[in-house]
C-alpha cells in the first residue's frame, strides 16, 4: 500500500513542502533522501522530525506514518543562526 508523506522544510524562509507517495515498506530514510533531493538539499545534514520536534530515528514509511504523515525537515546550519546585530 502506498502512503503519502508531506515533508515541510521548516527552516526555509518560505517553508516549501515536498509531497511523496511511497510504498509503506520502504525505509523512511529512502523517502527522506528523495524529498531532500527534490528540494535540492543534502539529506546527510538535514534532520527529520515529527511535528512537535521528536526526531525520527528510522524505520519504515508505514511505521513513521502511524504517528504522522507530516514530516518537519530542519537544516541545522540555518536553525539557530542569529541575524546580525543592528548598530
Amino acid at each position, binding site marked *: 500500500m502506498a502512503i503519502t508523506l508531506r515533508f515541510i522544510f521548516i527552516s526555509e524562509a518560505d517553508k516549501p513542502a515536498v509531497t511523496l507517495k511511497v510504498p509503506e*515498506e520502504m*525505509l523512511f530514510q529512502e523517502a527522506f*533522501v528523495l524529498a531532500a533531493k527534490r528540494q535540492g538539499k543534502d539529506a*546527510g545534514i538535514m534532520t527529520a522530525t515529527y511535528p512537535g520536534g521528536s526526531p525520527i530515528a*528510522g*524505520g*519504515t514509511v508505514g511505521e513513521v506514518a502511524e504517528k504522522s504523515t507530516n514530516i518537519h525537515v530542519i537544516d541545522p546550519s540555518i536553525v539557530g543562526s542569529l541575524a546580525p546585530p543592528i548598530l
Partner: protein
Amino acid sequence: MPLRIRDYGETHLKTDDDLFYFLQCATVASPKEPAWADRAAEETYALDRFGEYLKYLEKNEWFAIRPTAAAKTRWTGKVLYGGRSWDIELVLKDSYPQTPPACRIPELMHYTDRKVDDPSLGLRICDMHMERNYWWDEHSSLALYLKREVSYWVQSVVADMKGKGWL
C-alpha cells in the same frame, strides 16, 4: 584479524571465514529478476543458520533483523554490542548481489568517518575494504555481509567512541 581454528586431523589451519561457506547463496539474481524469490529464500536460510551459529556456538546473538515486506529487499532491526543496542537498516538494491547491501545504523553514522554517500540512504556504512579484500561476490549473502562488514564496523566505531569518551 579472523580467528584461527584448528582443523582436526589436518596439518594446516583453517581461517574462521572458511567455516562460513553455508552463508553463501547458490542463486545469483537481483530483486527485479524472476529468480529473486529463490535468492530471497536462500538469504533467509543463511540468516537463520547464522543466527543459530551465533546463538548456540558463539552465544552472542548480536543482531536481529526482519524484512519489511515479502520482497525481502529492505530489512530493519537491531544490532547489539557491549550491552547497548542500535537500530539497523539495510537495503538490497537492484544491483544486488553484484554490489553489497547498503546499510545504515542511524545513531552511529554521525560519530564516524567510516561512511560513504549513498544515493538512496544518504549515508551508508563504508564497505570499501570489502572490495579491496575481495570479501564480496555475487554469491555472498546478507548474513555474510553482517559478519564480514557490520560486525567489524560496529566494533570499531564503538571502540573509537569509547576511546573519545563519547560512550
